[in-house]
Structure formats: structure tokens, C-alpha cells
């Protein structure tokens, strides 16, 4: 499995938890309603959408559930299920809010936690409702039947081009921002090419850069669909899209760290390398005790060195977070590009090295499965490529996340959002200014819960099977952690928090692979402890999170 597949599955979780945490951020971050029961809406959303797409219950098998509209056209589709799940959780959020919203912070939190536990218990014990304590399975995520894509079919080409559209549009939008603050690279020319000439000529007609990006994405999608239908050029299109994506990512990293001088760069790279060195005992040492002690000692030394540096040298303290960020990027780069080729390099197979590199660079496609289109590439030999379902799902999820984020930002960047933030500050003031806090709090609960329900529906698609554990309280606290890490009341920060949290989870899952199977479970469980400690550190040193509260100093439309 190529590293890019790992990244794709990680991004799926980021999208789900991004939506979930955005919902919690509306309630807690913007309005100050501490909802410990946010997972309740996640649970209801997941089960509702799953029950809509399931086929009618067959009394002959051993499962029991209540509706199952899967065979009714239109009603039994995911789109309908998600809409119903979102509306239903919004309504439930409003109904739950009515009696509880008068309570103050911690009382409200505990009451809502209780309500989410009630939801979980109902799902668990009412066996007629959704198969009770056993898992609810038997449905498949949207359009999964189309995969693996048959080359040359229209449906396959359309599914393929949807993914191309999303990637191309996102990359183009990012590039249009990047080209404004960089003159060394020929970004303008690249932009002109990737927007098919629209970027420079039709900018006035289309209006915003996002419209241009969307249209460019559409054109790219149509072209790729045509290429696929006419000549089955999966690999060519996939490689082009991948390279475009890499270009934007690398330029983004370069621009982000452009202001650092040489010694700061060296420090960041050193930090990342140090992290790598600290983990070396794990794969190298034979005895598990040696590797664990060695790694922990080296990690401790690294953390101490970092702490020492930021407390003793002022120039380090000024860039303390930047150094960690750069170190992380460096580390991820090595992990993504360098480590996978160590194995083939050791066995001296050049084509193996090139093949692994190629597979990781062309992240857009999945390699080496039984289905797909075969190619023969001179330097690396025969490969089979295909667009797998998880990449398609990721495109759908990212589209949803982007749309919900935009809608939510519109709602909070407004006088409405201002009233919410005022309620978080001091309700009495809001009352004295002629605004009814009750009405706004209920609306905030409705929006936040609806987002929670939407995330639940995404989870139902992703996990392809639900149990009552879907509604376990931990999920709420993960979402809360994400909100705290990124920045309370800051939607951008919430997305960053989701990336960081799942990045950590992904990294530690990889690490656990170095341990013997008997220990692996313990290592994975120990992560929760580490997450808890990190949570405390964040709260102690950065109570406002990494990005802090968002400033709305001049409101909307002020430039």
C-alpha cells in the first residue's frame, strides 16, 4: 500500500471530524454553549441516514431494524438520507435546547451529556429500532458499485471526472491566492495554463477567483472524462492532476516558511530530523525493551532541548511554533518520500525504488490492485492503476466540507454571528440591547446539531457499519479537543485542529506497527493518555488555541 493511500484515509477522517467540530464550534466557540452531548446528534444522524438507505428488513435473517427505504427510488438514496438526517438532528437539537438552554455552562454541559447517553441507550437497548446492541450493516456507501471503474464506460468517466473537478478546483483556487505574493516563480504563467486561459482573460466576467477555479475545474473534469472515454489515459490524467497538486502544496509550504532566515530553517529541519532519530530505535533495536526505552529517552532529550532553546534564546522563542511546524513538514516529507524507498533500496532494486517513488508521487491513483488498467513503464516495469473508491469518497467529503464551511462562515460573519459572540461574552448586555438571547441560542443549537448530524451521515458512509458505540461520549471530547487546539470560535482553526488530531492518530498508528502484536493494543490505548496530556499542555500554554479567537473587528464587507 502506497503512503498516499494512508494519507487519503486520514483525510477522510479529517473531513468527518471537521464537520463535527465545526458544529460544536458554533455552539461552544461562538455562542458559549458547552455541549458535552454533541455526539448524540452524530449518532442520530448516522443511524437516520443508514436506515434510509438500507433495504427493507428481511425477517428471515438475524437483523432487525425499523424503516429501510433503500428500495424506494429517490427516498432511499444517500442524498435524501443525508438531508433528512441533517434536518432531523437540527430539529432535535432545537427541541433539546428548549428546556435546557436556560442552564448555565457546566449544568448545561452535564444535562446535554445525559441526553446524549439517553440516545445511545435507546439505540443499544431497543432492538427493533436499529438492530439493538449489534452492528447495523448491510448498506454500501454512495456510488460504490461503480468502482473499480471500468475503463471506457461513461459512468466510470463521470465518476473519475468528479474527483478531477474537486482536486483541480481546490488547487486552482489555492494557486490564484499564491501567485499574488510570489514573483520568483512563474506562477502567473502556470495559472494561465491551468485555468485554460480563464485566469487572465475572463477574470472580470466570472468575478471572484473561486468562480474561476470552479470553471477551470469543470473544464479539467470534462477534458479528463473525454480522455478517459476516448483513449483510457487514466495514468496520464492521474499523473497530471497529481503533479498539479504537488506544485500547489510545495509552493504553499515554500511561501509559508519564506520569511525564515537560514538558522531558523536549520532549527526546524533539525527538529524534524531529531524526531526521526528519536524514533529510530523502534525499527532497529531487536529487543522491545531497548527500543522503547531508547525512543522515550531520545524523545525526552528532544523535548528538553526544545524547551531549553525556547527559554534561553529569544530568537528561538519568537519562532517556537514555526519551528515545530517546519519540523513536522520535514518529518512528513521524509516519511512520505524517503522511508518507503528504504526497503527496495536495501535490496538494491533500482526499479523498485523508482516504482515506489512513482506510486507515491502519483497520489491521485491507486496502484497494484487486481482491477484497473495495466501499463508498462520503462523504468519501473508493469503497473496496474485505477481510481479507487476512497479517493472518490474523499472528493465527495471535501466538497461537503467546503460547502458547509462556506455556509457557516456566511452565518457567523454577520450581525447574527455578532449577537452569538455577544451572548458568549455577557447575556445581560444582549438583553439590555433589545435582543432575545433565547432565540439566538436555540438557533445556534439547531445549526450546530444539524452539522453534527451531517457528520454522522458521513461517518455512516465511511464506516459502512454502525454500533451504539458510535455515540460514545469520547467522540464529543475529541471534537472539543479539536476545537480547543485550533482556536475556540475560529472555524479555520477548527479545520487545522482536525488535521493535527488525526495526523497525530495516524502517526501513532504507524508507530504501533513496530511493536509486537500483543503490545500493539496497549500502545494504541496509551495514545489516549498522550492526547490527554497534549490537551492539558494546549490549554495551559495556549488557552485560545493555535490560531486564537478570530477577530471580527470590522465586521463584514469592510475592506
Amino acid at each position, binding site marked *: 500500500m502506497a503512503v498516499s493511500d494512508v494519507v487519503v484515509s486520514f483525510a477522510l477522517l479529517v473531513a468527518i471530524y471537521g464537520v463535527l467540530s465545526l458544529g460544536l464550534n458554533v455552539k461552544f466557540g461562538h455562542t458559549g454553549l458547552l455541549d458535552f452531548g454533541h455526539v448524540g446528534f452524530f449518532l442520530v444522524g448516522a443511524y437516520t441516514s443508514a436506515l434510509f438507505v438500507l433495504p427493507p428488513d428481511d425477517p428471515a435473517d438475524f437483523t432487525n431494524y425499523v424503516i429501510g427505504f433503500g428500495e424506494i427510488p429517490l427516498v432511499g438514496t444517500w442524498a435524501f438520507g443525508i438531508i433528512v438526517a441533517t434536518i432531523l438532528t437540527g*430539529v432535535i437539537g*432545537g*427541541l433539546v435546547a*428548549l428546556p435546557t438552554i436556560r442552564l448555565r455552562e457546566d449544568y448545561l454541559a452535564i444535562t446535554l451529556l445525559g441526553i446524549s447517553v439517553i440516545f445511545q441507550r435507546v439505540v443499544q437497548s431497543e432492538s427493533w429500532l436499529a438492530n439493538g446492541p449489534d452492528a447495523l450493516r448491510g448498506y454500501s456507501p454512495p456510488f460504490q458499485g461503480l468502482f473499480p471503474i471500468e475503463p471506457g464506460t461513461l459512468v466510470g468517466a463521470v465518476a473519475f471526472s468528479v474527483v478531477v473537478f474537486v482536486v483541480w478546483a481546490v488547487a486552482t483556487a489555492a494557486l490564484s491566492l499564491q501567485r499574488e505574493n510570489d514573483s520568483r516563480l512563474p506562477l502567473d504563467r502556470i495559472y494561465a495554463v491551468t485555468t485554460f486561459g480563464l485566469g487572465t482573460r475572463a477574470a472580470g466576467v466570472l468575478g471572484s477567483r473561486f468562480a474561476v477555479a470552479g470553471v477551470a475545474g469543470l473544464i479539467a473534469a470534462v477534458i479528463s472524462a473525454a480522455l478517459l472515454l476516448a483513449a483510457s489515459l487514466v495514468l496520464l490524467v492521474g499523473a497530471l492532476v497529481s503533479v498539479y497538486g504537488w506544485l500547489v502544496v510545495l509552493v504553499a509550504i515554500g511561501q509559508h516558511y519564506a520569511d525564515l532566515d537560514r538558522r531558523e530553517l536549520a532549527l526546524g529541519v533539525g527538529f524534524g530530523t531529531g524526531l526521526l532519530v528519536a524514533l529510530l530505535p523502534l525499527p532497529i533495536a531487536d529487543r522491545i525493551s531497548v527500543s522503547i526505552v531508547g525512543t522515550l529517552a531520545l524523545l525526552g532529550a528532544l523535548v528538553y532541548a526544545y524547551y531549553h532553546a525556547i527559554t534561553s534564546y529569544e530568537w528561538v522563542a519568537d519562532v517556537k511554533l514555526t519551528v515545530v511546524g517546519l519540523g513536522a513538514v520535514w518529518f512528513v516529507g521524509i516519511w512520505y518520500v524517503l522511508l518507503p524507498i528504504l526497503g527496495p533500496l536495501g535490496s538494491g532494486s533500482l526499479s523498485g525504488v523508482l516504482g515506489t517513488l512513482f506510486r507515491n508521487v502519483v497520489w491521485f491513483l491507486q496502484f497494484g490492485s487486481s482491477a484497473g488498467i495495466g501499463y508498462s513503464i520503462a523504468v519501473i516495469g508493469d503497473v496496474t492503476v485505477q481510481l479507487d473508491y476512497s479517493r472518490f469518497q474523499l472528493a465527495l467529503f471535501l466538497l461537503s466540507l467546503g460547502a458547509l464551511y462556506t*455556509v457557516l462562515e*456566511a*452565518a457567523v460573519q*454577520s*450581525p*447574527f*454571528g*455578532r*449577537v452569538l*459572540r*455577544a451572548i*458568549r*461574552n*455577557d447575556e*445581560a*448586555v*444582549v*438583553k*439590555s*440591547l*433589545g*435582543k*432575545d*438571547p*433565547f*432565540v439566538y441560542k*436555540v*438557533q445556534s443549537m439547531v*445549526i450546530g446539531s444539524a452539522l453534527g448530524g451531517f457528520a454522522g451521515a458521513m461517518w455512516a458512509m465511511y464506516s459502512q457499519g454502525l454500533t451504539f458505540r458510535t455515540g460514545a461520549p469520547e467522540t464529543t471530547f475529541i471534537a472539543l479537543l479539536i476545537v480547543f487546539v485550533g482556536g475556540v470560535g475560529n472555524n479555520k482553526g477548527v479545520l487545522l485542529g482536525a488535521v493535527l488530531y488525526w495526523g497525530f492518530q495516524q502517526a501513532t498508528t504507524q508507530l504501533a506497527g513496530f511493536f509486537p502484536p500483543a503490545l500493539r493494543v496497549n500502545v494504541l490505548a496509551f495514545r489516549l493518555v498522550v492526547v490527554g496530556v497534549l490537551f492539558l499542555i494546549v490549554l495551559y500554554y495556549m488557552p485560545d488555541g493555535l490560531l486564537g*479567537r478570530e*477577530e*471580527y*473587528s*470590522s*465586521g*463584514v*464587507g*469592510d475592506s
Partner: protein
Amino acid sequence: MTTVLEVEGLEKHYGGITAVDGATFGIEEGSITGLIGPNGAGKTTTFNLISGFEEPDGGTVRFRGEDLQDLMEPSRDERVIWGGASAITAGTIGGIAGVAGLGLGTVGGLGTLAVGAGLGAGFYAGQERVRQAREGHTNSRPYMLAREGLVRTFQITRELTEMTVLENLMLAPQGQAGENLANTWLRRDLMEREEAEVREQAREMLELLELDHVSDERAGNLSGGQRKLLELGRVLMIEPEVILLDEPVAGVNPSLTRKLMDRIETLRDEGYTFCIVEHDMEVIMNLSDTIIVMSEGDVLVEGEPEAIQEDEAVIDAYLGVD
């Protein structure tokens, strides 16, 4: 001149303490009324009662001839929310009962449906009743009064400390289109146009109060005097009829106090009505058209500043002998 605010036999008890005991007075439209008295005379409680932040135990307050309790009826939005919730709950219970009843044949199904719908409706009607009964006594709705044009400031300033000074002011104007959630998505143009106006208005207000240099500062970083100004500016942004000011110049430096007084007088001449609680005798005597002296929860004397300063009872109770 008409009496815009009439207070009659107002009473408020906290446990064994009688904070306000039968106070009766009126506030004339377009005037400045000073409310003075020794500590514990019930001035702030009176303020809370006539601004709707607390409910009186006895007596009435009339604003433009209407009882405050009638003005503080639930807002339309609140009624919509509760009504919608009632309908949804009743419908759900009825629906579930109906589905369950279908198993009993047509007659049984219809019967169960009717029972379920009745149960649902009855459940929510009952809850509504309990809520109304309870809230009639405990939950006042001062925001309804602010909408009608009766606003107040607080003795201890209450800023939205995490929001900027400009935002604090922009929050105040009534009936902004962008406060409606649907408008933030569907009528963005209207909202942005209105925001530009409100921002302009807020900037003018800041200039007037000489706070324009801190407009993007968080309100929590302001000094005590600046907070007083900000709070005054905020209620003025509402464009109310009657403004209740609780110690507006406490902690404000003398030259700014002077300006503030001028400003209040100008506003009075423009038709605003003020009622001011203040301990600074010089300010209150110079500013007020009428002064009400309270003592032990009741009105001791009411009259023009000159007369008050001569009054034996007031000198005994409050002013002291020079």
C-alpha cells in the same frame, strides 16, 4: 409635557429586606431626572424594576401609559419557536401512535391515532401552561422594553470584553436585517449595505465620545472611564426614547465629565428623556431638571435642584450639613 414613565406604589423585597417600599414618581418626557439618595435607599433596585431586569412584588410601572408587564410579553420569535416545538412534538407522538395503531385494523388505527394526537397536543399544551405560569414570575424580558425605546446602562460597566469597541457599538442598533439567520445567506447584499451604514454610525458615535483611536481595541482593554463612555454610546446607538443611566460619570475625569454632561443636555434638547442615578452632587444638581430623593425604599422629596438643596429632610438624610 407628558409623563413618559409613571411609577406607582413600587415594591420589592429580598428575603426580609424591603429594598423598595411603595415608591411613586413620574418622569417627564424630554427632561433629565436625577435619582439620588443614601446607600441602600433602593435606587439601583428601582432601576432594575423600571428597566425590566427584575419584577416588582407590588405596584406598577407604566411606560407611555402601558404596563411594563404587558410590554414584556414573549416576542414573536419566541412564540414561533415554542409553537413550532409544540406542533412537532404533538405530530411526532401522534404519528408514532398512528403507525403503532395501524396494526389494530382501520378503526383501531384511527382510534390510536386520535389518542396519540390528543396526547401529544395535551402534553405540550400542559407544558406550555406550566412554562407560562413559571415564567410569569421569574423570567422578565427586558429586551422587549429596549425595543420599545426604554434602555439602561449598568452601574458596574458591562462591556463585551472579547469584542472590539466598534463591534460593541455595532451590536446595538435594532432590527438589523443581518441578525436574521436566513438573511445572512439569502440577502447578503442587503445585509452588507446595512452593515456599512451601521459601521458609519458607530464610527461617528466613537468620534463623538472621543474613543475613535481605540475603535479596534478589545473592549476589555479600556479604562474604567472609557468603558462608561462606551456604554453610553451603546445605548445611544439604539436611538431610544428613555435612557436610564446608572452612575454615568463615576470614574470619569472632570473634563470628560463636563463633555458628557454637555452631551446629555444636548440630547435632552433633542427630545431624549434621561433618568440618572449619580452620587456626584455637582453633576446631578447642574444637570437635572427634576430631582427625586429616595430614602429607605420610598420617595422622600421630589422637586427642582434648588429646592432640594434647601430641603431640611434631604439635608438630614443625605446631603449632610456643609
